[in-house]
């Protein structure tokens, strides 16, 4: 090495150190942004967990421990029946009416049993009314027609009557047990402290109720499933079809470019505006269709599941189209060439080569768009997702509520327990999204594997 060379070498070394340092700085910045995202996610999860679990103070009208020497839920139907007779004999007619009546309440006691009830009535009682039965006969109607679980609910609601009088959030419950106990002793001396998970199978399967402890998500969950089903049926074929047309068939004309630009812009339109569009078009203008009149449904409101599904479908259509276009464009041109070279028509090439190869990408994009639709609230408020609906949707022409809407409504209730209910509903909603996304990933991997061999 000559002397003239070495200063140059040093300069290179110095610059190299500088270059490497710059690279490290950037990689740290990128890491930091990831860490920030992760932190936000953790915070979100903690907030939800904080609401969905924690101590509650439950006050019983009758302490369940005094009813039987075994826990109530382990008793048989007959044993529960005994508990019922012993503690609430006078309520049995009401219980029968609430569970089996098929006539208006004011004529219930005067109607013969076979007409009044929707259950099997022994021939000997055919002409009797409810008031003419004795205790034993009343009990037999109840125990013969209710399952053990239903019997347990009846006992719980009619005798025990648990009532959540106070609730504490998860982290407070975890770290301030002493304070909670002190509060219990001074404010609710008769209540029992129970650690409660607000997400339970019962919560998912129960209809809406006025008490936080009894209310459930079933109505809203069914509403969401219906709306999403309609949304999928409407937006998937339409979106993929449009993408195929734009990528494979449309030439580079001014009109087609205008359409594409518009679709791109539509993807950014606020969702509330789609709500207004849905209100005008589906709820008002197409009311004969969306209310179901055209198939003979007796209804004059367009504020139905069908309108909601179509509106959400419109909302995510641009995103579906854009994603599907990207996926179709990513299919190598050589595959199309090979197909044409064998004498395939354009349609055969698209259907047998391009679409299967693009399907994993199309599905991924579609599920992402659908996840957005599931979480949408604003447009459905405009469409008129009803705030308090306690009956399950029965079809596309039902009125409806959906999970995010229900969450929104629960957070507005002044009763503090409903915040726990809302948190529980969020967990259910997130689980639904998680299941859908995993399904998408599994589906995509299966297709990709099939393609790559």
């Amino acid at each position, binding site marked *: 090495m000559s002397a003239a060379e070495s200063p140059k070498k040093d300069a290179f070394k110095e610059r190299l150190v500088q270059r490497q340092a710059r690279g490290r700085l950037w990689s740290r910045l990128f890491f930091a942004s990831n860490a920030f995202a992760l932190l936000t996610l953790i915070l979100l999860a903690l907030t939800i967990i904080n609401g969905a679990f924690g101590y509650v103070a439950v006050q019983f009208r009758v302490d369940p421990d005094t009813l039987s020497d075994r826990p109530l839920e382990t008793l048989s139907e007959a044993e529960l029946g005994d508990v019922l007779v012993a503690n609430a004999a006078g309520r049995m007619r009401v219980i029968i009416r609430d569970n089996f009546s098929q006539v208006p309440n004011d004529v219930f006691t005067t109607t013969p049993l076979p007409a009044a009830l929707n259950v099997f009535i022994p021939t000997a009682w055919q002409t009797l009314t409810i008031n003419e039965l004795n205790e034993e006969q009343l009990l037999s109607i109840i125990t013969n027609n209710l399952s053990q679980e239903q019997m347990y609910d009846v006992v719980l609601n009619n005798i025990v009557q648990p009532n959540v009088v106070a609730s504490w959030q998860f982290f407070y419950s975890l770290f301030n047990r002493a304070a909670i106990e002190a509060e219990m002793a001074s404010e609710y001396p008769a209540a029992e402290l129970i650690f409660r998970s607000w997400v339970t199978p019962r919560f998912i399967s129960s209809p809406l109720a006025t008490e936080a402890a009894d209310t459930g998500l079933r109505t809203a969950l069914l509403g969401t499933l219906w709306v999403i089903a309609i949304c999928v049926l409407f937006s998937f074929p339409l979106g993929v079809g449009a993408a195929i047309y734009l990528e494979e068939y449309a030439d580079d004309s001014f009109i087609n470019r205008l359409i594409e630009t518009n679709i791109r812009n539509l993807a950014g339109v606020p969702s509330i505006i789609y709500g207004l569009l849905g209100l005008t078009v589906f709820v008002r203008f197409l009311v004969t269709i969306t209310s179901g009149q055209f198939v003979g449904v007796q209804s004059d409101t367009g504020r139905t599941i069908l309108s909601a599904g179509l509106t959400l479908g419109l909302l995510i259509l641009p995103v579906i189209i854009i994603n599907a276009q990207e996926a179709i464009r990513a299919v190598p041109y050589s595959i199309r060439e090979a197909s044409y070279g064998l*004498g*395939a028509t354009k349609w*055969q090439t698209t259907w047998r080569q391009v679409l299967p190869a693009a399907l994993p990408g199309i599905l991924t994009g579609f599920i992402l768009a659908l996840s957005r639709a599931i979480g949408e609230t604003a447009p459905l408020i405009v469409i008129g997702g009803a705030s308090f609906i306690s009956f399950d949707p029965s079809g596309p022409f039902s009125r409806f509520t959906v999970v995010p809407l229900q969450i929104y409504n629960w957070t507005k209730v002044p009763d503090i327990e409903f915040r726990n209910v809302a948190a529980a509903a969020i967990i259910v909603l997130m689980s639904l999204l998680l299941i859908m996304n995993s399904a998408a990933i599994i589906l995509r991997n299966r297709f990709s594997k099939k393609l790559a061999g």
Partner: protein
Amino acid sequence: MAITGETTIHLNNVSVYYSNKLAVKDVTLPIRKQKITAFIGPSGCGKSTVLRCLNRMNDLVQGARVDGEIIYRDQNLYARNVDPVEVRRRIGMVFQKPNPFPKSIYDNVAYGPRLLGVTRKNQLDEIVERSLRGAALWDEVAGDLKKSGLALSGGQQQRLCIARSIAVEPDVILMDEPCSALDPIATQRIEQLMREELKDYTIVIVTHNMQQAQRASDYTAFYSIRKEAESGGVERRWGVLVEFAETEKLFNSPESGETADYIAGRFG
């Protein structure tokens, strides 16, 4: 050009334009039946362009236009009543880069027959075996037809593409530099294939490899580039057919000095 033999395709004053830009001018050329014709020439002289006119693959390029006649079975391929789909079924193509479908070996080969409506399993099985044997690939893949075509080596992939194209029983196979992505042994394999299994097909092959043209082909067409200065210092270039002859004659006693220079490696 005193050339004898039956002609499958005849090009008559064929000129090709891309978006009104002349790419190849006035090519007149016979493609001999059941013979191998090689296209050679410097890069950009229009070999691929002419080749892709023979089965109307250029229709897929927006703005491509073909003048002149390409006569196949007494029919101008560019006549209005001719469906390019029909043309491509009879005149198949193998591309420069092996491009098997992302499907199993079996489905790759069965694709063409299925397009034509063959659905019976045993008929397809028979076509697949015959085609794979025809492309000298059967012995290597017979046990594993369910394997993805993409899992094969480059040379095997290219033979799969050949099997795929002969599955629809074309008259003519067009090959655009089919060996340029392959190693010498795989190349040799394909050349042998062309001489033996594919000897009943009419083959047109584009190649940059002089030895390959000499070894494998019966006739050779040499293309070159013509230039013309336009106003503003822009140069206009287009391809022309310089010489067409039996391969042996073209390489040993070329008529044109340009041909002689090119095959001697003095330009291009």
